[in-house]
Structure formats: C-alpha cells, structure tokens
C-alpha cells in the first residue's frame, strides 16, 4: 500500500531534498519505521528517545491531525496523504 508523505524543509536534507516520498505502511508507526529504513536518521528527528512523536511535530492524515484520530496507531490505506509539519505559532 503506497502512502504519500510530504516532508518538511528541515527534514529534506535526509530525503535527498525530496519534498514528497512514498512508503508502504498500514499505520503511522509502520510509516515512521519505513521512512527510517529508506532515510536513516529520520526517525530520531520525528520521535523522541522513547519512540513517541515529538511535541513540536504535527502529523496530518488527509488534512486531519492524528491526535484527533488514533495517534501513532492511526490506520493508513492506499492513496492516503500524510503531512509532517512542524508546530508553528500565531495568536496570542
């Protein structure tokens, strides 16, 4: 199952400057492992030492924040689009 992932600028050094990559995965955890296999070092940027997604990393599945879905266990299917986006400010 091919999942399309948009890679934020700070991580593109690890993906050979590619802004979009594709991996096979059934859920977000698997997706991160698959990314790590293709682009070694990327997991430690996205996840902390305990393997949890870092506070300042937002992951969206088809425009919805996975924290409103099933977090790392959120299921993925063929054709899904995932965005990895650093938290950004605004408001007060």
């Amino acid at each position: 199952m091919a999942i399309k992932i948009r890679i934020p600028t700070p991580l593109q050094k690890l993906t050979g400057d590619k802004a979009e990559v594709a991996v096979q995965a059934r859920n977000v955890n698997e997706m991160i492992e698959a990314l790590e296999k293709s682009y070694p070092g990327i997991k430690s940027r996205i996840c902390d030492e305990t393997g949890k997604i870092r506070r300042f990393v937002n992951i969206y599945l088809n425009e919805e924040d996975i924290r409103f879905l099933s977090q790392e266990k959120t299921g993925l299917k063929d054709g899904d689009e995932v965005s990895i986006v650093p938290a950004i400010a605004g408001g007060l």
Partner: protein
Amino acid sequence: MSFLKCLKSKGSGREYPKEAIYVCEYDFSPLEADYDYDAIRKALTREKIEKGPRSLWRYRALLPVDGEPTVGLYSGFTPLVRAKRLAAEWGVRELYIKDDSVCHPTWSFKDRVVAVALTRARELGFTTVACASTGNLANAVSAHGAKAGFERYIFIPHDLERGKVLGSLVYNPHVIAVEGNYDDVNRLCSEIVAKYHWGFVNVNLRPYYSEGSKTIGFEIAEQLGWKAPDHMVVPAASGSLITKIWKAFKEFEKLELLNGRVTTKIHCAQPEGCSPIATAILNKSEHVLPVKPKTIAKSLAIGNPADGYYAKDVIHDSGGSAAIVSDDEIREGIKTLARMEGIFTETAGGVTVASAQKLIRQGAIDPDSVIVLAITGNGLKTQEAIQTAVGEPVFIEPSLKSFEEKVRPPKTVMKA
C-alpha cells in the same frame, strides 16, 4: 549596533544563523533570538531607555534587528491605566490595565510584533510578506506592510468577524479566506512557506516576530516605576504572549534595570470553547492536548497551541494559575471594563477581565497586591460578539415632551 547574536533552539540549545528559519532541525522545537547580554548590560541604562522614542523601539537593544527600525515607528508605548473603579468593585488594592486596544496603527498588540517582524523582513531582503491570522495579525501586517511597501498575502479562517476582515481589506493586500479553522490555515501556510520565498510573519519570521511581544512586559515594568507587578493576567491562544512577558521581566532583572526581584505570578486566561493550555494547567497534566475550538473569542481560537508547553512551564515556574470562562462571562467582562474604566476591548480582553475576576474571587490572586491585566485588542473589531448584549438606544421624537416621556430623566431644579 546589533546585540542579536544568533537563533537558538529552545529544545536542543543548538545555535543557528539569524536568518528566516524557525525550527530546530534536530527536535523541531522553536528557534529563539539570542543576544549578547554582556554587551547590552554595558550599553543599556534606565536613563537611555527613558530618553528613547515613545514607541516599542525604546527597547531596541533587546529586539532582534540589526539596524535602525524601519517599520512601526509609532507602535507600542500604550497607556498603563490605573483602574480605580474596577479595583474598588473587585476589592483589590492596585489594579492596572495595559491598554493595547489603542496600539498604533490597528488597535491591537499585534502592531508591536509586526513592527519587529517587518523591520527584520526588510533586513533579510524580503519584498513579499504573509501571515496566517485570526484577525489582529492580519490587520497589522496589512497596515504596516502597506506603509513599508511590501507585497502582502493574508491568510485567515473563512468565518472571521466582519470588522477584522474589512480591517485587512482596506489596506489592499491579497486576503485569502481558507475553508477551515485557524489550525487548518496555519498548516496550509507551513506548506506554502516551503514553496515560496516569502517572509511569513508567524512562520519563518517567528523568532523575530514573537520577540516583539516582550515590549508589553518592558513597558509595564517601566510604567510601574521599574518594577514587575505581583500578578499578571494574560490571554492565551498559542501561549506565546505569556512566555514573552515573562522573558521581558526576566531580561530586565538580569540587566539590573528593576527595583527588586521578579516575583510576578503569571495567570493564563482562556475561553471555555478553546482552553487547551488552561486545562492542562488546572488538571496538572503533562500534555497539552489539542482541541477543536468553538468560542466567540476567535482571536484565541487556536486548538493546537505551538507554545502551549512553554506557557504551561512559565505559569508553573512563576507560581501562577489559570482560569477558563464562558461566552457569557466574556461578554460580561467586555461590558464591565467599558462600564467601569471606559475601555472597549475585544473578546480576548473580555476573557482576560472575566478570568481576573474569577481568580481574585477564588483567592488565586491576592487582593492586597499590584495586578496588571493585558488587554490586547479593540472592541470595535468584534462587535458581533456583544451586539445583542448591550441594549438599544431610546428612540424619541425631537421634542421636549417626547424626551421627558420616554427617557424620564430624574427631576433637577434649574438654578436661576
């Protein structure tokens, strides 16, 4: 001369060049401006600040720009209003309103942050600037950017108050209303920023922009006679303002510009329909969980607060607390400030007033202390929110008879 050294990761502590970048490549934590405090200590005195311009630029040594300011030369240095009537009503000793509802030129504290961001944008060579905004930032980028001659792209949620939309359109930028809430707009902008060479005020210029918020704290301390207050009530959306007011007091302390130490307790004010930070504080929870906002305080409707964790830490370190208020309490807060102190604030200000009242009542704020409320925006921008809560005028015919019948003023005897 510039005291801005570099940008520094708030998480990993790694240093980065002072360019248009905003996240640490290692842990995605935000980058923050870092200064040469030793040099500032030698150069900066109270007298020098007091002789400076009557704008936020009197604190230029502590702002992240290299050269002379070029944008927002009249922004900031707003009144710190002693609120005696409201203090009497609430039974507290010394209460002040930091009144950014009259900030130049668009009547909110965002005029400060944009003054700094666009001065820096020009130094970095940008000709186009942009922002994602719940309204006030949109107005400030539109206006400041017009005067400074920038091309402007303004991204807003589709359902903003009419006053805030019009308050951007009139300056003739590109205004893009996005189907979705602020968090959706923000996510879209973070993808746009990767593709276009624009200065996004709240994205790739964020390390500069957010420092502008410190000037509220600097001004409060200076206006109190070089003293930090005992309590501050601050509204929170992303949580950034809380962290920057705290940073301002601490910087003044570090530079020995204050009488006494900083013992300020900072309190977080949020609306019931969007209170991720206040909820985490009140529940003593480790995590700030994002929410889907639903509140009349649209300028606070950020469900995924980027600085939430840092704001929570400041509240904890300062010994402060948090309050959550309902839409009705927000309306009542707006009316109370107008009725008692003659200041008409927007919904975020209503949140702050109502939260302060609640915290005083609960005993979280000591009545025998110096209390400052951060009032960040103007009520004329969010008229819809209180349209039905302020009553109607008395309609009469142009005759004395109609006046006396319908208005029934108390009888007074005219002196001969």
